């Protein structure tokens, strides 16, 4: 069996970190080869080297047995290597065709028509179901991803790299994507799949290369290997998928939301007459399909969006119209949905990021002067306790951390702040099993200390694993709120589609 891609003994160093330490990857013709590893394990670096974005310090790359030097993505394209990035690289107001031919326009005159015809043909051949004349901003995320796939096919790529392709997709879109990947392989393409979702690997991949902390751990045949084995190889210890937790010890009301009405960005009511109570010592999960008012609700509670009517009370304090800082002081902690946009200052040190909410008050500062020593010690404590890995400790820039470590930093900051009410929005999005397990256990620990936790997640697994009660949102309204042990995924799934529970079962 011949190898289409061989990366032999690759080493790549960044200041303070060996991202790839003697890693070898061999991909066979026509297989789906998964690369499994925690965030920061070095998967993306390895693929960036293959795609010509980085250069290896040592090691050899062979394509179809021939040694090659890939200096930039164009070289990679010429060798038939294409990559679907986690963040799509599409021009929003261009059509599908225009996006695909961008950079490959051909001669002086733009021949949209024949390009469009070829794209339609490719789309049909691989079952991608894309209309070449649609404008990108009008199509769904799943379709945008298929446009990225088409882009590679249009450039005659036969080795396709998928970087965390399911991170942005809905469950149905994931099913479609897996089918598409099977079609691609059937047509003779080879696929490298970067992911940390074990279930997907199990479902679609043939073989799997596992790396941990920059080192190669092993290559396994997926069919002969259990999910648990792969997980423990990835993390370096046995992993539990079930969150261990004791029954909730409910205390007083911490969060009371009453008849809340909030406008969304289109100036329409995004949250309608929403009421909810979260008690000390419990986790309430908000389930719902993305875009049903969860973001607006959370922004209203955290002070980032004005409230039209209704009230928000935290621990007896009416904060309906309070500013964000007052809410922080009352005890609202917030793990934001978009950690890079909201959660961190990428160009600042970890120390500054840990202090970003509390820098203005003792003991972080006195009379307007920062206490650098305290700041440093406190940040060091958070980093140690929450196992945030970085090249240069508290002086590392937040932007240089991997996604998982960025999230651990935010979780650490919010939990260390001893928030009475911790709001966690998609706290484990895009993270690997080890980090997910860790963050889940921290959220449960926070609950067990007698604090209230409000969780928003689009992953039903996560909602069921963590929540003591589940509130389902649809169209900005509360469909129902149920105890986790008295419901199941099917029932909640129906409620997420707006179908209320049958009467009389309450």
């Amino acid at each position, binding site marked *: 069996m011949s190898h289409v891609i061989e990366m032999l003994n690759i080493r790549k160093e960044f200041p303070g970190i060996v991202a790839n330490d003697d890693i070898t990857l061999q991909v066979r013709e026509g297989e789906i080869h998964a690369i499994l590893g925690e965030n920061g394990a070095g998967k993306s670096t390895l693929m960036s080297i293959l795609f010509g974005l980085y250069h290896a310090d040592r090691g050899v790359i062979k394509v179809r047995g021939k040694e090659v030097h890939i200096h930039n993505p164009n070289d990679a394209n010429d060798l038939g290597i294409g990559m679907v990035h986690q963040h799509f690289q599409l021009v929003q107001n261009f059509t599908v065709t225009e996006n695909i031919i961008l950079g490959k326009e051909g001669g002086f005159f733009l021949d949209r028509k024949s390009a469009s015809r070829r794209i339609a043909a490719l789309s049909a051949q691989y079952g991608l179901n894309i209309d070449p004349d649609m404008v990108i901003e009008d199509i769904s995320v799943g379709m945008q991803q298929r446009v990225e796939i088409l882009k590679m096919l249009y450039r005659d790529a036969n080795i396709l790299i998928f970087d965390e392709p399911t991170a942005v997709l809905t469950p149905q879109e994931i099913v479609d994507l897996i089918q598409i990947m099977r079609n691609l392989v059937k047509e003779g393409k080879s696929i490298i799949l970067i992911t940390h979702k074990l279930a997907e690997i199990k479902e679609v991949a043939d073989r799997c290369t596992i790396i941990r902390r920059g080192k190669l751990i092993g290559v396994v045949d997926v069919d002969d290997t259990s999910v648990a084995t792969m997980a423990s190889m990835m993390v370096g210890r046995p992993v539990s998928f079930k969150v261990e937790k004791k029954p909730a010890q409910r205390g007083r009301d911490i969060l009371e939301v009453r008849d809340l009405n909030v406008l969304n960005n289109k100036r329409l009511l995004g949250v309608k007459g929403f009421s909810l109570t979260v008690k000390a010592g419990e986790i309430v999960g908000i389930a719902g399909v993305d875009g049903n008012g969860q973001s607006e609700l959370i922004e209203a509670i955290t002070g980032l969006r004005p409230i039209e009517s209704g009230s928000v009370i935290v621990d007896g304090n009416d904060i309906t119209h309070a500013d964000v800082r007052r809410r922080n002081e009352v005890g609202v902690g917030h793990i934001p949905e978009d950690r890079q946009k909201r959660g961190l200052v990428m160009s600042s040190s970890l120390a500054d990021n840990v202090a970003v909410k509390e820098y203005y008050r003792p003991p972080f500062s006195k009379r307007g002067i*920062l206490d650098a020593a305290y700041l440093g010690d406190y940040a060091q404590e958070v980093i140690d306790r929450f196992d945030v890995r970085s090249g240069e400790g508290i002086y590392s820039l937040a932007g240089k951390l991997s996604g998982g470590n960025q999230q651990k930093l935010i979780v650490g900051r919010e939990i260390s702040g001893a928030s009475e009410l911790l709001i966690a929005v998609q706290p484990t999005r895009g993270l690997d099993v080890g980090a997910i397990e860790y963050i889940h256990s921290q959220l449960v620990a926070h609950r067990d200390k007698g604090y209230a936790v409000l969780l928003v997640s689009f992953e039903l697994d996560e909602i069921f694993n963590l929540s003591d009660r589940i509130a389902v949102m649809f169209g900005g309204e509360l469909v129902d709120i149920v105890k986790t042990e008295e419901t199941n995924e099917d029932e909640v799934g129906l409620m997420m589609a707006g179908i209320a529970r049958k009467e009389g079962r309450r």
Partner: protein
Amino acid sequence: MKKKSRRATSSNAFLVAVSAVFLGLIGGAVLMALIGSNPFTGFYYLFRGGLMNIERVGNTLATATTLMLVGLSVAFAFKTGLFNIGASGQMLIGGLCATLVAHKVFLPRPLFLVVLIASALIGGALWGVIPGFLKARFNVHEVVATIMMNWIAYWSIYYFVPAYLKGPSLETESASIAVSQSLRAPWLTKLFNGSYINYGFFIAIAAVIIIRFILDKTTLGFGLKAVGSNRFCAEYAGIKVNRNVIISMMIAGSLAGLAGLSFYTGYSRNMQIGVLPAQGFDGIAVALLGASNPLGVLFSSLFFGVLQSGKGFMNAMTSVPPEIADSIIAVIIYFTATSVLFQRFWDRVTRYRRSRHPEQSEEE
């Protein structure tokens, strides 16, 4: 060990600036050679012009004073993510307020100096805070607002100077300020053999120290930098973005106001109408070369001060036109603006050195 890694990154910023200066000088040398002059004699007289005797050094420092304060103004606004292109107008208004005080207020010298400095500070702050407010309240871009404020200041001077401060002979400039009512100090003038150096230099040095302190050590600076680096995160963390924008523009404006003070009541002792001071824009170059760092601004303003004050002498002694000095500044700015390239180069050098000497590496 951890301190060291922090220093490593800032020393690269320093290397970037030095590389840009070096390439700027080479660019200037090429230009001189192209017009048939000897670059070595050109540079010799350029630097001699700025530094050959104590008087010239004093003039260089006086030139650098204005640049330093404007550079600080631009750098400070940069830190909050704002582009203060209105330093010229802020200088004019700061200078106008100071000139009015110099002509109309008579107090014991120490008290007078305090009033004089305060007037320029307030005038500049006012000219900065208006665009800051417009930005915060109505989201008017500060570049547009500050440019318009420049012209409002320009035409205000056109009116105010002939109307209230007219000199005995010339219609186009204000009456000269008595030395005792200016920032000049006889002991300083004597020490530097009759040069233009004045108290403004000490004000500028103090400003560098204070601004550095504000940015690095205070909660105010922490908030301002957070807003400048990621306003969404600042908002999320409970930092009032709009208030910080206004404060930042106010402080930037007051620094430029002080630059006007040093220029109009120290370096020169009158104000001309119909001139938008070029220093207001040169300050952008100073801030850029100084990587928006107060100490960087200090050094880059001194360097530009040498070029500015030496170019006349170079022109007198050789056939090299003074515009060559400006071209050198332009080339330096060009290379500073493309500093990413140098950054990469020096990062690579650092990394190479580290891999050669693993015992010095900072891995855990």
